């Protein structure tokens, strides 16, 4: 069958993606679509990269060796996701170095949940379980993204995220079956994280009014994602004897969850760089980007130095150790 000709016709392109069509890097893309794609995918990459910091703080303090290893593996996964995602952004025209520069300068955004402190091991459990659960709902919807290279890497990302959720759930289960003090750590963490979790999927803008949905970058609306999160996870929270800190939360007769209006002002303030840990984490990220510049210089140069070294040419000799 002959392909639908979507070249240089924005309306035909729009109809094509709205009909479930997917496009590749080499296809003609309307400028607005490309700009929106870069913004969306870059924010996802930033979130993966910044998302490791709240957990990184606990690698050294993890309660057991097994937890330490699992947390380290998770951090590796998420840095790997950032690498894959920035690669997709690069093919859309924005180099990784510029993404990183915009991230640390505060020009580009990252998800609200990564602007908050990780006070106790309970927070680590709630992040690994519920923050990742909220994230995987968005990411699973991206498997149908109209931009195929992004949808493809999402397969691997979702696959790895399912390990993260299980790991998080295991951390939580260990604590709720532990001492009353450990149970309390989980409840306190849940109380702290519920607000940011309810803000996570964004304001309930109608899908039709959401430009990311219009171009089928996202395949579901914000409220749809939040409802899916509540449907899937509120029962799992309650069955452990935990309390959701929202007296208005309940599933109505029509199957839709009612809840206290999330604090949208807080969400806006946090994602525009005014979260409780924004400055500190961006400073840390900036420090590491500068500190590791030499690695990128060495590895991503034109390769001459590396090839030269392997062929035994012009390798600067190490100074002989001094003998005392």
């Amino acid at each position, binding site marked *: 069958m002959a392909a639908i000709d979507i070249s240089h016709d924005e309306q035909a392109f729009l109809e094509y993606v709205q009909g479930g069509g997917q496009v590749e890097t080499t296809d003609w893309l309307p400028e607005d679509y490309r700009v929106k794609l870069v913004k969306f995918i870059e924010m996802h990459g930033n979130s993966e990269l910044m998302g490791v910091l709240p957990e990184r703080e606990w690698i050294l303090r993890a309660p057991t060796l097994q937890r330490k290893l699992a947390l380290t593996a998770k951090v590796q996964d998420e840095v790997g996701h950032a690498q894959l995602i920035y690669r997709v952004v690069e093919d859309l025209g924005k180099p990784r170095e510029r993404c990183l520069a915009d991230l640390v300068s505060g020009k580009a955004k990252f998800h609200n949940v990564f602007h908050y402190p990780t006070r106790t091991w309970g927070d680590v459990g709630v992040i690994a379980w519920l923050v990742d659960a909220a994230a995987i709902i968005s990411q699973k919807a991206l498997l149908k993204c109209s931009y195929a290279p992004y949808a*493809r890497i999402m397969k*691997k990302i979702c696959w790895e995220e399912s390990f993260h959720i299980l790991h998080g759930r295991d951390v939580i289960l260990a604590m709720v079956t532990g001492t009353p003090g450990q149970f309390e750590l989980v409840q306190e963490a849940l109380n702290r994280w519920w607000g940011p979790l309810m803000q996570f999927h964004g304001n309930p803008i109608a899908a039709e009014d959401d430009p990311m949905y219009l171009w089928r970058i996202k395949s579901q609306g914000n409220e749809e994602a939040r409802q899916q999160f509540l449907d899937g996870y509120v029962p799992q929270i309650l069955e452990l004897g935990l309390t959701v800190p929202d007296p208005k939360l309940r599933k109505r007769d029509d199957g839709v969850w009612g809840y206290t209006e999330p604090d949208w002002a807080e969400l806006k303030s946090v994602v525009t760089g005014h979260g409780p840990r924004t400055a500190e984490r961006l400073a840390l990220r900036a420090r590491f980007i500068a500190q590791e510049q030499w690695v990128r210089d060495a590895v*991503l140069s034109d*390769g001459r130095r590396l090839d030269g070294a392997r062929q035994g040419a012009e390798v600067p000799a190490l100074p002989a150790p001094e003998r005392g």
Partner: protein
Amino acid sequence: MIWEIFRRDRKGQPFEHAGSLEAPDADFAEAWAREQYGRRGESVALWLVPRDTVHVVGDWADEFDLKYRRVDGYSIKARLKEARERHRLDGAA
């Protein structure tokens, strides 16, 4: 240098495009690809292909409308109906 990565899920399955990575040579590309696509044993083999070496074919002109070679080139509904109808009438006569 950009490398396109293809992975094979398990024996007997075709290689499938998985993503791309940037590396200066094949050794680095391999180290990266092993980490990204194989560290949990999720692939039995990888193909690492320099993007520049891929010869792409993506345009399929059909100026001569060669539909007669495809199933969508044949609409038999009306003729079939006519043939059945004729047979029914012949039988009745």
